[in-house]
């Protein structure tokens, strides 16, 4: 798409990043619908129905695990791109230095003054957005680790179809989530597996709240900033008024 006169096109998302975004969106919808079923089956299978295609819980769990693995893979890619992407350098905005703090509060002020003040360069990813996405990734990592911990409960024998290293590794990598969950949930001096479940379920709600605000904020920006922010995730770029962008051309 060619930029409107007076506007300049700013490339923000490569095709691969956009694909990952939409893969994540659909994975998340699948993970939440199946996860809610696994937590407390909310629809009934027909009791009169004989054993035809009846593995309802098994299918739900299968989808949940598959989606989890997709999430694992996209997380690794995103982690890599955070540091080595050719397009964006999001990590540099994550460091809580003076410049980033100032930008963070400028964006926050823009949001609460309903776009009355806009004293930052909106062409590129700002510190506020980066911090918000960092929260998301943090919650996601916690989801993956607690999820794998819940999953390894089913491998109590220490065996798996791919070998004994798999449950061994999962224990090694995720067992610490038990005491950490126990600490978050509270209770007696000994943490328990249920704490991990409670924490996994609770984090799902935090993620849903995160998504709701994320969608709202992107739409709000599109409407009020008038820079076509929403098209970042479809077409890969947004459009900024030329005078805005001049001082930051090199950024």
């Amino acid at each position: 798409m060619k930029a409107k006169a007076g506007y300049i096109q700013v490339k923000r998302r490569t095709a691969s990043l956009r694909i990952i975004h939409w893969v994540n969106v659909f994975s998340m919808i699948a993970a939440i619908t199946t996860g809610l079923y696994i937590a407390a089956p909310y629809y009934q299978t027909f009791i009169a129905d004989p054993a035809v295609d009846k593995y309802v819980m098994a299918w739900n769990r299968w989808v949940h695990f598959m989606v989890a693995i997709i999430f694992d893979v996209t997380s690794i890619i995103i982690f890599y791109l955070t540091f080595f992407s050719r397009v964006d350098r999001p990590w540099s905005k994550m460091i809580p230095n003076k410049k980033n703090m100032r930008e963070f509060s400028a964006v926050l002020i823009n949001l609460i003054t309903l776009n009355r003040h806009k004293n930052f360069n909106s062409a590129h990813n700002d510190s506020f957005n980066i911090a918000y996405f960092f929260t998301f990734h943090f919650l996601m990592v916690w989801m993956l680790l607690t999820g794998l911990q819940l999953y390894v409960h089913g491998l109590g024998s220490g065996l798996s179809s791919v070998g004994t290293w798999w449950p061994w590794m999962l224990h090694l990598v995720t067992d610490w989530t038990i005491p950490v969950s126990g600490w978050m949930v509270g209770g007696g001096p000994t943490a328990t597996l249920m704490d991990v479940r409670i924490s996994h379920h609770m984090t799902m709600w935090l993620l849903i709240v995160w998504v709701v605000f994320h969608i709202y904020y992107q739409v709000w920006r599109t409407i009020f900033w008038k820079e076509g922010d929403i098209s970042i995730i479809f077409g890969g770029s947004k459009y900024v008024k030329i005078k805005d962008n001049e001082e930051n051309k090199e950024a």
Partner: protein
Amino acid sequence: MSIDKEESVKKLFTAESAKVDTNKGDAYYDELYISCQKRIEDLKKLKPLNNRMDFTESIEDQGLERRDFLKWASATTAMLMLPASFTPLVAEAAVLMNRVPVIWVELSDCAGNSEALLRSDGPKIDEIILDLISLEFHEILQAASGHQAEKQMNEAMEHFKGKYLLFVEGAVPLGMDGNYGTIGATGETFVDHLHRAAEGAAAVIAVGSCATYGGIPAAAPNPTDSVGVMDVIKGKPIINIPACPANPSNMVGVILHYVLTGSIPELDSLLRPKFAFGYRIHDNCERRGHFDAGEYVEEWGDEGAKNNFCLYKLGCKGPMTFNNCSIIRYNEGVNWPIGVGRGCIGCSEPDFWDKYAYERPMSNANIKAPTGGVEKTVDEFGLGLLTAAGIGIGIHAAASAVAGKSEHGGEF
């Protein structure tokens, strides 16, 4: 769970959960066999410690045959994760159980574990064996009381110093300087009593969920500040046999293992013997097929219940509970909770009363907030958060719409 404790931080990366190594190789078992043989020879030279009936006689008195006993021995060998060749050794060790002195103390409890091993309608071999052990002190079972009982305990502790197994049943109240529970004529607090008894013990065995994690007395709001034995006793081998009540087979298993090998069995990160707690209820449950099929009992006594459907929606916690009742069951394999049509309440896991035993799936159950205040279901709390976020967004959106669009930066 307090994260500030040095030990819990250390545990962060070293917890081992329920990994079970059931085959340690021939060389290991050959060596073990020889050392067990030697230990049994040594034990045979000792006289039976006190009293008690002759084992073979009491088996016959109860109308059981030697064949039953041998069947029991081979089942127990398997339960202890030993090769079948150990069966004769296990049988011999069972007969020699009265060579090992046992002191049994009761703290904050309902005596349910003692009941479990005493009150089955016909004594099973497990119970007969527990009858046979050289129980030097057990407040409920002995005739002595008051000063006399205290004297008996002191004597037993003195006489068998460093050799006896200490069984503890019940939680340890720590609040009010331990004065929530006192024992005996001197009014000794439970904590002091436990410390004194543990002092000379070869190993401490916490029986039941209360002794293991605090259990029911430690349930929220835990007014007496109750904890389990492992939170009080340090520097002693501790074995936890949780569950409510602990399965007599597992108690026998632990004693037998000690008699046979002179050592305590392999333990998991919660100090539970792996031979008993290395299995998840759910993985060996006869209703598992219905779980995967999505066939659940919706309410007590419905069509699903009549067809033995899975009890998950009525709060079965088999998927997060490690115990062997789905394999060995209770009362020598007669039945077990899920077999009689009610869900597992996770009785062998920490905080089971607050976090497992609410008879509905976790997300729909009232769970205490970390502050100990509001009781909410996780879903209610999540929906509350979502509503709050929705209201905030609504206000912001309305305000933005009213204020109208503005380019930016001071252009009103």
